[in-house]
């Protein structure tokens, strides 16, 4: 029973980590929390579900389409909106407000265009389960775990072991100096948005398959945001750690205490970590960043 809950927790944590790393990447470069990130995942889920249900596309191309679409939406957010606001020399809070506006816009755009009703993926994978050393595990959970682990290792390799990653880390640590040294900061930011969007699209499809697809699906990303705060805003490895902690905590609380109190525990954990270690598990000191 416990082992089964742990697997569920890891699978939920895996999906959170896909989103949490996106928050961390964008925060580390731009220093603001991208509230529209959850909606990018939601739009990805809609692209997938519409192409499977309405266009009768096979699942894999639909997934590819969803990931590409989400990446492009994230790209547009940066290229059209955030870059303009940054070039106005506005305070960072304006980026956050704009992201909140974008999030509201996307949510309600879907309500108006597609309707507020829940959409379902045809249950090819969603209900199947397998036996594993005496444990019954949903195929979807296994897929979530595999996809997220691949994505995490890919991202970790990209950020910490390639020249591109070096550039991203340089921009994150000091964008002005990087720019002076000839790094094209805006291009790095764009690529990071593409990357974060693709990961969010992936997470959106997985979430949509696990639950259903609905306009406020993006609210799930709040948990991922908490995960990235928990791990230390702007730290990618911290975000992954936070995501798995929160995923496991949530499933254990729902299983053994009460599913109604699940969110209370998550937010309680957030407040506790902010009080005990405000910079998060792996973050830089908060005082320094002001």
């Amino acid at each position: 029973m416990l082992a089964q809950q742990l697997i569920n927790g890891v699978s939920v944590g895996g999906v959170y980590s896909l989103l949490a790393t996106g928050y961390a990447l964008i925060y580390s470069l731009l220093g603001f929390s991208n509230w529209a990130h959850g909606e990018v995942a939601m739009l990805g889920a809609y692209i997938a579900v519409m192409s499977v249900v309405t266009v009768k596309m096979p699942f894999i191309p639909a997934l590819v389409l969803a990931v590409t679409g989400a990446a492009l939406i994230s790209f547009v957010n940066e290229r059209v909106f955030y870059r303009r606001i940054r070039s106005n020399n506005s305070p960072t809070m304006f980026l956050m407000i704009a992201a909140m506006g974008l999030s509201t816009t996307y949510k309600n755009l879907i309500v108006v265009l597609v309707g507020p009703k829940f959409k379902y993926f045809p249950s090819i994978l969603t209900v199947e389960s397998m036996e594993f050393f005496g444990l019954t595990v949903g195929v979807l959970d296994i897929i979530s775990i595999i996809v997220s682990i691949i994505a995490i290792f890919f991202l970790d390799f990209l950020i910490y072991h390639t020249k591109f990653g070096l550039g991203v880390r340089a921009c994150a640590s000091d964008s002005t100096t990087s720019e002076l040294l000839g790094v094209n900061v805006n291009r790095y930011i764009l690529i990071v948005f593409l990357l974060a969007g693709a990961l969010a699209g992936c997470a959106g499809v997985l979430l949509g398959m696990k639950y259903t697809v609905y306009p406020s699906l993006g609210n799930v990303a709040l948990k991922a945001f908490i995960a990235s705060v928990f791990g230390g805003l702007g730290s990618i490895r911290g975000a992954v750690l936070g995501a798995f902690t929160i995923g496991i905590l949530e499933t254990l609380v729902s299983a053994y205490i009460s599913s109604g109190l699940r969110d209370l525990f998550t937010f309680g954990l957030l407040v506790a970590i902010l009080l005990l270690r405000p910079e998060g598990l792996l973050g830089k000191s908060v005082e320094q960043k002001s």
Partner: protein
Amino acid sequence: MSDYTQGVVILICVNAIAVAGVSVLTGFTRLFSFGNGGFMAIGAYTSAILTKVYGAPLALSMPLGMACAGAAAWLIGKLTLRLKGDYFLITTLGFGECIRVALEYAYKLTGGPRGYSNIPHYTNAYLAVGLLIVSLIVARNFIQSKYGWHFMAIREQEVAAEAVGVDTAKYKLMSFVFSAVYAGCAGVLFAHYLRFIAPNMFNLEKSAEWTITVVIGGLGSLSGSVISSVILTLLPEVFRGLAEYRMLVYGAAVVLIIMLRPNGLMGYRELSSFFPALFRKSRSDREEEAR
């Protein structure tokens, strides 16, 4: 006044009071809170339970509702306002959600997710308008007081404000508690008007809507925020058929305003600067002339 008109007037006042609080917090202190819906819930539930279960008069339950909201804000602010903007924001968001979950869970006291009904009907349009006027006068005087100047110093340059001796943590806390008390007041009015409240009426979207209203009206303009809350409450009533586009338009409007005219409709100006003859000169105007 017909019931319908009275209802619209009350709703406008409820929103405008809460928005005035958010205006002080976001427009003047540049703090961003997603928890004000939670404070509204605290005010609404406190007053509803006090009047219904204990038979308390509104004159007692309203200050208590506002005090509870303020006390909750004080506690949260004390814990988190030392931290940077994003951490504060996420804690307020977490707090708002926690209040909702806690209200749903404590169903014996609050009626749970299905809501709390049969609240005594105390709110009428005259009371609502009266309270709105009083709270606007208080807010205006507050932001023109010494405290308000400290808020604006924090808004413009927090580090510099700190360097010249403004106790930023203290004034941020003050501004946060102020906005929570206003949200609590709006909650009390709302509960005794609708006579039915449910936890999901005070969710994240409510807090986001108020922040959106302040941004549209103008960050740093109290009268702009209030005007925009009146317009934004009236619009869906006038154009009933377009109600489903309401939030879409709000969202898009915020993005456009932040991109193109970041100071909102009114900028940093107040209504009085357009009709100087009608208003006694405010301290800010005098300062402006002195320059």
